[in-house]
């Protein structure tokens, strides 16, 4: 890359750098660990690349309040190590190795435990952002319950850096349950199987289907995790154990060129899987059962079927996004697909980044 690299070590310095860059009309790309560089639209090569890795402080872990404040360049794994020593965790489990907190929020990356704990927007309680012109602003706070002012954290979550830089985040933490029980059940209808599981009263923290096997996960106190696993085996069969199966939570597109993310009405999972199997019979699938999300790894040639897949999935209330792909592949397709409420989003972009300097082209949509 021929772009200049900025690596500020404080939020103040970050603001100064952006003020200077925007004053010169230079476009800015943002990079954390680089674990999701292939996500989003290809974008235009920016004049300046801003690395958040110098923003690496864990500002405060208030263990008694189950809250942590960290700068954006801190790795999610480091957050987990820090709070893990207090028997806590930040209930986000996207699998990308080395991913920074800023990158996870900017891409709204999730893993299988979203079934119980939700997505990054649900756990982010405060944020400090830096706009293109260097303005540093804060919203939310460091208490979980807080409705004062607009929640900029929600807007910046999943914005792919196009509204500004995420500089610091405050999260709600959860107690780390002491016991883990896992049931793996062979099934070709994971949706019906999960329905049968929840009818027993069991509350899995995650449910993932890899194309043939449903993995239901229970994290609780020992006796309750054990009991719920027993209920599941009784209801849908399978094997109970105390370890996650290999590949649990991994992206199905690892080692493949293209990743797709399909969403659907939760009740339409069966149809969504059938649509996918018809359109792309060779797709490698992992589904967050019960959350309405199916991930798939495919070859670039499969993208010929993208628009027909999109129209079928739209009938199930969902959308299809090209989650990741090489730039040359992405330049030939509409990565994001149709967007509801686009006119308003365009106005938001104009307000936060009127000159279009931040991560240009990462979020490209056809009107």
């Amino acid at each position, binding site marked *: 890359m021929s772009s200049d690299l900025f690596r500020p070590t404080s939020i103040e310095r970050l603001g100064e750098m952006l003020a200077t860059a925007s004053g010169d009309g230079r476009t800015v790309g943002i990079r954390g660990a680089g674990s999701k560089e292939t996500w989003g639209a290809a974008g235009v090569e920016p004049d300046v690349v801003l690395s958040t890795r110098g923003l690496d402080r864990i500002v405060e872990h208030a263990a008694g309040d189950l809250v942590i404040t960290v700068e954006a360049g801190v790795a999610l794994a480091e957050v987990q190590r820090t709070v893990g020593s207090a028997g806590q965790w930040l209930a986000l489990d996207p699998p990308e190795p080395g991913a920074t907190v800023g990158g996870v929020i900017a891409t*709204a990356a999730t893993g299988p435990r979203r079934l119980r704990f939700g997505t990054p927007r649900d756990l982010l309680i405060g944020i400090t952002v830096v706009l293109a012109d260097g303005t540093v602003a804060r919203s939310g706070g460091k208490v979980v319950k807080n409705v004062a*002012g607009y*929640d900029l954290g929600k807007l910046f979550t999943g914005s792919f850096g196009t*509204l500004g830089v995420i500089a610091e985040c405050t999260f709600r933490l959860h107690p780390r349950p002491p016991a883990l029980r896992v049931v793996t059940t062979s099934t070709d209808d994971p949706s019906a199987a999960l329905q049968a599981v929840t009818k027993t009263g069991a509350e899995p923290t995650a449910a993932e289907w890899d194309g043939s096997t449903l993995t239901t996960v229970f994290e609780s106190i020992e006796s309750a995790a054990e009991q719920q696993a027993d209920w599941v085996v009784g209801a849908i069969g399978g094997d109970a154990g105390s370890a996650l199966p290999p590949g649990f939570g991994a992206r199905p597109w690892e080692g493949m060129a293209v990743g797709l993310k399909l969403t659907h009405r939760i009740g339409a999972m069966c149809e969504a899987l059938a649509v996918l199997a018809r359109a792309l019979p060779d797709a490698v699938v992992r589904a967050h059962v019960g959350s*309405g999300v199916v991930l798939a790894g495919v070859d670039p040639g499969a993208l010929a079927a993208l628009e027909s897949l999109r129209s079928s999935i739209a009938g199930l209330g969902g959308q299809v996004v090209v989650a990741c792909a090489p730039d040359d592949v992405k330049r030939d397709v509409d990565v994001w697909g149709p967007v509801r*409420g686009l006119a308003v989003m365009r106005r938001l972009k104009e307000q936060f980044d009127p000159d279009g300097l931040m991560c240009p082209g990462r979020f490209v949509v056809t009107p």
Partner: protein
Amino acid sequence: MTALAELTADCRARLKPSQVITEPAELRTYECDGLSSYRSTPGVVVLAESTDDIAYVVGRCAALGVPFVARGSGTGLSGGALPRTDGVLIVTSRLNRIVHLAPDDERAVVEPGVINANLTSAAAPHGYYYAPDPSSQQVCSIGGNVAENSGGAHCLKYGFTAHHVTGLEVVMPDGSTEQFGGMAPDPVGYDVVGAVVGSEGTLGVVTEVTVRLLRTPQSVQTVLAAFRTIEAAGDAVSAIIAAGVLPAAIELMDALAIEAAEAAVHPNYPAGAGAVLIVELDGPSCEVVAQLADVERLCLSAQAFDIRIADGEAERGLIWKGRKSAFAAVGRISPDYIVQDGVIPRTALAEVLQAIDDVAAEAGLRVANVFHAGDGNLHPLVLFDESQGETERAEAVSNRIIELCLEHGGSITGEHGVGHDKVVHMGKMFSPVDLDVMQLVRCAFDPAGISNPGKVFPTPRLCGERPGRRSGAHPLQQAGVADVF
């Protein structure tokens, strides 16, 4: 003809006579919301019966430059639905249909006037419920909950309204109608739903809401623990959290709040209690049984002198009745009172309660404490007698409590909203720059500033073009085939 008169005439021509209120006596019904210390007679009231009605009225407001305020059931406690004499009050109560109940999708689509508790009643036969449960849930509307990002006792485990809304239809301040999100998760683009929830009616009028439904938990257990002192009860809360138990709710009431509840609804809390703790556990029975034992043990270690476990729905209901009626019950023991809503980090509880005591003692007033102890959301009730000239002192105590929350790193509001009442505190919690940046959102939605103006922000931002040069246009954008963000 004034703009307001013209708007009123337009509404009369378009809507049924019963939908447009201009009679002064009738208008007074709407002069305040649940915070009755602020009153203002609306210029005109429109009782909307459809999204089209609202789009029409808002469109006319935009054309004529008339401000509008949306109102649901009017139970808000921050003056968020306080009307304007120069504007129109759009009441959404008649939009009360559950449009679509989809238990298989774990969603419901509702109009904004649907009463919170009615949604759970409708979902219950299917084994589902709607989680956010503000104390006013028997009367408050989902639209109002969306505006305020309402919480409730059970948000400790299940989160607030923002966590349970997946889609919105909004009449924008220019009169257009927009859809955001929907039944499926992770809608593509910016999280506009997340920005609108909790915006207190300043970004438009919500006309349809898609919400998450949760499966009714297998088991629910409610524990009432009585302590001699509020400090001991606070210790029990810390011990429960430290043990890794995440109850659905942990509520704390002090002696004065207990006295009020007893006088009003006779929940029969243990006599001689300086504080009671209500802990509710829910989930799979095996988990609840084990956690119940933990909670009992931890309460006893913290010197609880009486522990009751609700036997059946009736007992559970009575325990909750005492808590949920606490605000109104205070009227039994004091002629006047102010309900405050502030948040502190839970670990600062003992220190802040002591400070509140000191402030109250100095002012010669009593403060009853009712709060969501699990998440540090305090609801101190400042008791006073207006006829004795105590109003100013009570307001000073109430304001001082908010400052205490901020000094301990908390928030000026946990669930009641900023509304009209707390505009003055916003500048203490956020810098002018923070507030300006937040208002970029306002400028994107409502550049003319006609949607519930004067609420939330102390100083409106002027939404103008900022100078600057454009650069780095994406090839697709240059070709005119795509929008580039």
